[in-house]
């Protein structure tokens, strides 16, 4: 037997191997057009970075509000008049109610994310329109926490002070910050070691554990 004969035989016989039917041109074309349109719509519906920022901000505010609400509902009731409690000096060793602590740490995690993205954008010379608005939201929540039992812990109070200062700066450069202004804020965050402090105060795994403990 020769190689040529074998190859002819195989070529001839293999034509029946998975012999294709007539190409369903129109059917496939219709599906290609539909699938491309669907993918285009899906891409358009994907949230932009700005929309993501807004969602983060809303989520942060919601978590904080929930934490404070839970704290008021199930936390220890003050045994002294409120004005008297609020007047206590920071760092007096008083235990922070767990719900306030949880809310504070959740807030600090959102602040950390905000600062991280802000630094990235500032270094790239970007300034998203929503940045100042988000800073104002976080600033408001920070001040609420400073006035809450969470703010009576000396370490927490110091951290919240630093956070307030930086958020206030970002919020004040609302409309069109210059690259120099962005650089100054970026340097401020660095010099205070804010990101490190925030990560130490609110480690990522803390949220789930503390939520289990409180709720």
């Amino acid at each position, binding site marked *: 037997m020769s190689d040529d*004969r074998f190859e002819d035989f195989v070529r001839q016989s293999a034509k*029946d*191997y998975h*012999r294709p039917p007539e190409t369903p041109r129109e059917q496939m074309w219709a599906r290609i057009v539909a699938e*491309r349109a669907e993918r285009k719509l899906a891409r358009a519906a994907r949230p932009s970075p700005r929309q993501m920022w807004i969602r983060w901000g809303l989520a942060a505010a919601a978590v904080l509000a929930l934490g404070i609400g839970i704290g008021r509902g199930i936390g220890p009731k003050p045994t002294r008049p409120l004005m008297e409690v609020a007047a206590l000096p920071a760092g007096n060793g008083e235990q922070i109610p767990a719900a306030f602590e949880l809310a504070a740490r959740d807030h600090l995690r959102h602040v950390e994310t905000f600062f991280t993205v802000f630094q990235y954008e500032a270094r790239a010379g970007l300034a998203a329109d929503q940045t100042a608005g988000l800073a104002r939201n976080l600033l408001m929540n920070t001040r609420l926490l400073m006035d809450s039992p969470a703010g009576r812990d000396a370490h927490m109070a110091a951290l919240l002070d630093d956070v307030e200062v930086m958020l206030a700066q970002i919020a004040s450069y609302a409309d069109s910050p210059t690259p120099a202004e962005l650089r100054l804020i970026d340097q401020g965050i660095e010099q205070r070691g804010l990101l490190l402090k925030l990560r130490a105060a609110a480690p990522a795994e803390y949220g789930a554990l503390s939520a289990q403990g409180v709720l």
Partner: protein
Amino acid sequence: MDEREVIARVRAGDAVAERQLYDAHVDRIYRLAYRLAGDDDLAQDFTQEAFIRAFERIEGFRGEAAFGTWLYAIATSVVLNGLRKVKRFREREADLDDAVTIGASSVDADPDLKEKLANAVDDLPLKYRTVFLMHDVEGYTHEEIGVALGVPPGTSKAQLSRARARLRDALAAFAGQWAS
């Protein structure tokens, strides 16, 4: 019309030109997908995905090779990756093989021998089977196969030679039928 002109129109968003490109190449892509998958649904899915990717990436086609060669490379990648993902491919392939063997008898080969050949082709490693089907059955050149699989043409030739050797071994018992 010159294909380069059609491609330029596709890049400009001309849907008619897209259809022209599709019509020019769809048969070859679908046939190859069907030969490799042995399943009409899979072959259609792979063909569609190949064209969708090609239209999405056409900005990146620089014209260094023929458009067809570039498209076959995309299609081959889609088909081979798809086949690896489809777990039930083997069972479907076997079912369709049976149907094809029973329904088509245009070649004067003994049914047992045809079945044996189909099984032998199935048993080839995917890369050998791909080269064998592309070259010996669908008529692709070694250059086209090389671009499609990302290997030198010499590798394609070597793999075809090994595929044929394996088929010859598998069909040794039937030697008299092609020698006569």
